[in-house]
């Protein structure tokens, strides 16, 4: 192979490597695992903070066409940030929301909702974080869209307008 051809091939290779890394650098950095997507809601049963006589179970997710499941806590600062968006999902778009109160005390959770508003149709209590592990939660806040008992979307971190648009497109 001639020297000139070698130089051209090498330059093209370097350009390709540069373009590849440049594209990777520009992509979104947040890791959104897909391991639970397409799976049924895992089996669980928790205390209902709104109705002490009725537990919240995985069976509840078959009752509605689309359900938004949100893991939150009163001590979680990003949950406070995303809370207005959850209120909007409830009030403006009339979505059915189930909240799972993660490693929190009932009194603090109720205080939080009294102060900021309550978007949830029902709230389950997960004081030990076991339900969160069943759902493969990394850290709160975390939101799932469940259609006919199947998880179709998940978002780790506080909700934003882009995520809301995605959720609405799945409705």
């Amino acid at each position, binding site marked *: 192979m001639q020297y000139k051809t070698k130089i051209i091939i090498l330059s093209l290779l370097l350009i390709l490597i540069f373009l590849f890394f440049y594209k990777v650098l520009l992509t979104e950095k947040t890791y959104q*695992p*897909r*391991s*639970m997507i397409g*799976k049924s809601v*895992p089996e669980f049963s928790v205390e209902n903070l709104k109705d002490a006589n009725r537990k919240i179970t995985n069976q509840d997710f078959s009752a509605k066409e689309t359900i938004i499941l949100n893991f939150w806590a009163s001590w979680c600062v990003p949950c406070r940030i995303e809370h207005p968006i959850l209120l909007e999902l409830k009030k403006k778009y009339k979505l059915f929301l189930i909240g799972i109160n993660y*490693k929190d005390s009932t009194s603090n959770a109720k205080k939080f909702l009294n102060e900021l508003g309550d978007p949830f149709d029902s709230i389950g209590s997960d004081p*030990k*974080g*076991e339900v*969160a*592990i*069943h*759902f*493969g939660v*990394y*850290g709160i806040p975390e939101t799932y869209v469940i259609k006919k008992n199947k998880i179709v979307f998940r978002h780790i971190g506080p909700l934003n307008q882009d995520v809301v648009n995605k959720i609405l497109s799945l409705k």
Partner: protein
Amino acid sequence: MIKKFFIAILFSFLITNVSFGNDQLKNKIYKNLRCVVCQGQTIYESNSDFALDLKKLVEKKLNNGETEQQIYSYLISRYGDWIVMTPKFNLSNVLLWIIPLGVFLIGLLTISKITRKSKLNS
């Protein structure tokens, strides 16, 4: 009396041995599970909330009689292959296993070619 004494010693030895074995298995599992919210740490090394929750869950599952493989399968179904430090060999990660071997073989071939060439030249 002496008989009772020996039985008590034997019993306590058995209990210690069983709990030591359980601890060994528990630590082995902890060392093979990634703390997904930490930087390259296993749950054995981490004291994050996530790691502590996972440790409690592993302990509970072991006490319920689940095997090491059952625990890994459960966690892989929740968090993906990423949760275990030694991922299984499957179609989606076949390249990760084959590439190092391929590079090693190419290296060997190149070295043998060069040495053969230099021998011929000399």
